[in-house]
């Protein structure tokens, strides 16, 4: 109606006030267009900012939920200036994690080192994953001047920026040391003996896990030892290290097997040298009746169907000092095959 009157007014030539109407309309249009533009733009920017805040919060939540724990941590120095860290990693959190760096600080000499190339070990862990980084998979960190007697602390860094302290457990429980004696522990359950095929040990390295050993057959023995020296030093065994059995019911009857080396295919070769680093476990083979050589030996028929005691007589060096240890407590029964 108003519009019709306005048009009629113009048609009749009475155009007073038309400009103000047009101006007002334009003004309203301008204000509406500009305010809408600014409002919508502000809304979109606000949404962008809110999204960024959400993303940051999500990252923080993921970081808080990341929970990788360590256990069974041991520090050894197998080579000069090289600290080896054996550790068990478990992702007990609800998000996956990636370990990217390992830091080790030698508190004794106040030096530190890191290994940020461990991503090559593919330390990406889904929830529930467990990784054992021990033995050949242990992580090496270079620290100038580090030695096995030093004290260490360490921590992992994850890609989310969390740090995971290495939880060192009691490194040596004295009762574990071969029932409280010496620096080397013998694993009774891993005891085994071997028979021969030529100069090759049959079924090496598994052998025959038994405490019943045949007589009148050339045999050798496999003994698994772990270095648990409280001073964390490396033990080097000499060629005089031997395995000795003796028979309470047959006085004077005893047999000795000297330590030997064994090739991966089971071939026995004369002994050269064996070193056992702290916490390292190695299987040693005793096969020769001759020191530093290789002559097979069998148990005679005179002691058939008799039990005997087995002792391990270890000689060598521990660190820079002489070392000697007698590990007893294994019993064997010699049966007639």
């Amino acid at each position: 109606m108003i519009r019709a009157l306005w048009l009629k007014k113009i048609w009749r030539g009475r155009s007073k006030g038309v400009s103000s109407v047009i101006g007002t309309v334009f003004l309203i249009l301008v204000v509406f267009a500009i305010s809408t533009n600014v409002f919508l733009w502000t809304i979109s920017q606000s949404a962008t900012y809110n999204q960024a805040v959400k993303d940051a919060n999500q990252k923080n939540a993921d970081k808080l939920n990341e929970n990788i724990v360590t256990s069974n941590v041991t520090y050894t120095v197998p080579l000069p200036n090289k600290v080896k860290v054996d550790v068990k990693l478990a992702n007990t959190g609800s998000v996956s994690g990636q370990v990217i760096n390992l830091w080790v600080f030698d508190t004794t000499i106040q030096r530190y080192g890191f290994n940020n190339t461990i991503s090559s070990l593919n330390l990406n862990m889904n929830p529930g994953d467990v990784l054992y980084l021990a033995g050949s998979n242990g992580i090496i960190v270079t620290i100038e001047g580090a030695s096995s007697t030093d004290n260490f602390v360490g921590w992992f860094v994850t890609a989310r920026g969390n740090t995971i302290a290495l939880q060192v457990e009691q490194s040596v429980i004295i009762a574990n040391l071969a029932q409280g004696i010496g620096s080397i522990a013998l694993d009774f359950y891993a005891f085994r003996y071997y028979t021969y095929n030529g100069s090759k040990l049959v079924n090496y390295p598994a052998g025959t896990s038994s405490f019943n050993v045949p007589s009148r057959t050339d045999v050798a023995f496999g003994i698994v030892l772990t270095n648990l020296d409280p001073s964390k030093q490396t033990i080097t065994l000499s060629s005089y290290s031997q395995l000795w059995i003796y028979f309470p019911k047959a006085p004077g009857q005893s047999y000795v097997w000297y330590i030997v080396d064994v090739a991966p295919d089971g071939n026995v070769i004369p002994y050269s040298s064996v070193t056992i680093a702290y916490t390292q476990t190695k299987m040693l083979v005793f096969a020769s009746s001759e020191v530093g050589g290789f002559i097979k030996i069998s148990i005679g028929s005179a002691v058939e169907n008799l039990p005997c005691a087995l002792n391990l007589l270890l000689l060598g060096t521990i660190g820079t000092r002489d070392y000697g240890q007698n590990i007893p407590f294994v019993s064997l029964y010699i049966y007639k095959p």
Partner: protein
Amino acid sequence: MCRRILRFLSDKRALSDVMSATMLAGTVVTLSLVVFAWSQNMSSNYNYQFSQSVGVEVDRLKEKLVFEYVYYTSAPKSVSVYLLNCGTIDNVGVLSVYVSNSSWLQSFSSPSLKFLNGTTISDQDLDRGEEGYIVLSLSTSLKDNAYYSIRIVTVRGATFDSSFVA
């Protein structure tokens, strides 16, 4: 026909009213368009500045530096700060660093960033997932076993704090 046209052209009745109305309307429309263009320009400038500031804030939110390790040595007097960019944005540069305790402060501007292997980072910033370190040479020795704070201000203006025991 020609006479009619000439009569139409020579007829001046009510012409001034139409002209004035047209001119006024034209002026109003022109002014309105000018005002609209000016307002549009002003609002565009405002939008641009606002989006710039929002962008800066968003980038700052995406920045995340963590301190992998902070180590003080008394000889030479320096603090080594090992950093990891675990944020979601590249090009995180260190603008300034402050080492302080309750009674002392030393600032460092644009310290040299290096990779963990010791080589200098060419663009002097940390991209996502990159690790680097800075060495801050102190003017004075720090007290043994005293607690110190360290603050890093990035080029985008984000701040990250940590602490260490000398």
